[in-house]
């Protein structure tokens, strides 16, 4: 089984995240880069599938040089190899062009199953899985909290507002996972040391037959027009209970239209 996991490096949610004033893209240098949390679940699921069915797990990342730290972590968890798509031309790509670039790489390297997180913690569009499956012409199974491989098809449970759907899809397929699906392993020291020796293939846009005009800021079909800092949290209102605390709290909630 040829399993590919898409892993994005994102700024640590625990640190302050900023957009750059020059081109309104994320300032990736300013914050510590970490693996997008949900992608750890995707890696874990890939490893579980490999353990049960054999095969190979490839990590696929599009991102600047620094993203290699996140690739190494996925390799330390147990993935076998990685493909790192990195090119100045990709800077500022939006979801459409990111999916185009990743799909070009996936066509080149081949796959039986592509696993993704269901969304990233920085851009949070949650659209990549759907876009990838469309571009690759294969089924999409999004928001999976359970996946079982059965020969040439897969059965999955999709999280929904009302519970879950049971779905089946033929392979190859694109699957995005939610955190309920498993508990990602911590890399062991053996894994950390082995990761240093695992192959990481570096690709530039030309290597994957990506049309540079369709990616990056120039190729983006969306544009960040303006942005502003989130307003600072206002001081809370303290209600002193002098017998009428309940009424005051209710009045407050009503004034904010919560009740």
């Amino acid at each position: 089984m040829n399993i590919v996991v898409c892993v994005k490096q994102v700024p640590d949610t625990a640190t302050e995240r900023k957009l750059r004033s020059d081109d309104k893209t994320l300032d990736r240098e300013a914050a510590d880069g970490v693996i997008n949390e949900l992608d750890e679940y995707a890696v874990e699921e890939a490893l579980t599938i490999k353990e049960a069915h054999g095969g190979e797990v490839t990590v696929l990342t599009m991102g600047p040089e620094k993203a290699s730290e996140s690739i190494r972590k996925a390799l330390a968890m147990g993935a076998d190899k990685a493909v790192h798509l990195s090119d100045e031309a990709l800077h500022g790509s939006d979801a459409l062009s990111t999916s185009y670039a990743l799909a070009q790489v996936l066509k080149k390297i081949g796959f039986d199953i592509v696993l993704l997180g269901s969304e990233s913690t920085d851009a949070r569009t949650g659209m990549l899985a759907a876009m990838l499956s469309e571009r690759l012409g294969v089924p999409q199974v999004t928001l999976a909290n359970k996946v079982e491989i059965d020969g040439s098809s897969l059965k999955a449970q999709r999280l929904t507002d009302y519970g879950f759907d049971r779905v089946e899809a033929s392979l190859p397929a694109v699957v995005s996972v939610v955190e309920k699906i498993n508990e990602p392993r911590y890399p062991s020291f053996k894994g950390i040391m082995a990761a240093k020796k695992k192959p990481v293939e570096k690709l530039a846009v030309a290597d994957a037959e990506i049309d540079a005009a369709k990616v990056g800021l120039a190729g983006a079909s969306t544009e960040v027009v303006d942005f502003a800092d989130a307003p600072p949290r206002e001081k809370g209102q303290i209600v002193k209970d002098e017998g009428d605390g309940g009424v005051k709290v209710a009045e407050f909630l009503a004034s904010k239209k919560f009740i």
Partner: protein
Amino acid sequence: MIGFTLDEEYEALRRTVETFARDEVAPVIGDYYEREAFPYEIVARMGKMGLFGLPFPEEYGGMGGDYFALCIALEELARVDSSVAITLEAGVSLGAMPIFRFGTEEQKREWLPRLCSGERLAAFGLTEPGGGTDVPGGMRTTARLEDGHWVINGSKAFITNAGTDVTVAVTVAALTGDGEISTILVPSGTPGFTAGKKYSKVGWSASDTRELSFDDVRVPEANLVGERGRGYAQFLRILDEGRIAIAALSVGLAQGCVDECLRYVRERAAFGRAIGEYQAIQFKVADMETRAHTARLAYYAAAAKMLAGEPFKKEAAIAKLVASNAAMDNARDATQIFGGYGFMNEYPVGRFYRDAKILEVGEGTSEVQRMLIARHLGLPAR
């Protein structure tokens, strides 16, 4: 030659254990501590991560790392909690290490894979009720050879990891002749060998410490670990290394005090300002950070000598002395900064305060470290 930045793989390990300690240990350990319960679930997860196999080769189920990797893991665990850290320290450097360093190939194959996985623990029985510092002088436990078996009689005091549900063996130091000390491996459950009830301890409350008694305990002659009569020398080697590990654990506690205080002094206000704005508080925190930092350098230096195969006894003693002092001083300052809350068990600094004292006692008291350092400076043994 001079360089104190962690290599990439040590740093990756440090970050992994830091995350584990923060996400998996910190939220639940207070409850175990309060109940004085051994944290089996946490220990199992540490085992899954490979922490118990850190310094051992892969052929025995280890991670192929080294002793310094173990120290890094101990420091990060102890930043959050010392009970889990000492469980790892005793399991690896006292439980499994004597078998690895001195055991036969057969003993290594039999015991190490289980111990490296963390699914099973081994303990180290040196101290006796009659003495932990003057071991030869206080030793009463005997082992005599009788038709191919060692017959062991005596008792041991304060033995870590000796009575958990997953403990499989204790390596016991015993007199096998006049003034002759040897080490013998005693599997848990051997008739006549009992681990007493858990001590009620001032600190390390979620770790397992027991008194052991041996009443005509028979084990095969082949359970001798290392050479007959070399038991004391072997234990000294194990303790020299162990001091670097305890130093790392102490640095973790000292740093944990800084972590907690940095958060608290920004939140807690008095006389209209965060207490962190007062210089008296800032200086305390600065001193705490200084102690943690210098103690860390001391244990890094000792570990560097050890890994280079050079003599490291003095450096290990210095590291343990400095680091256990740092832990005690920082715990005292941290509880002071926390005021009344620092005296509450539900705050980590309250736990740190209770856990710090033993660091000046276990694996050689501070007096012992000073004796060793003085010896190395050429001053006479009395």
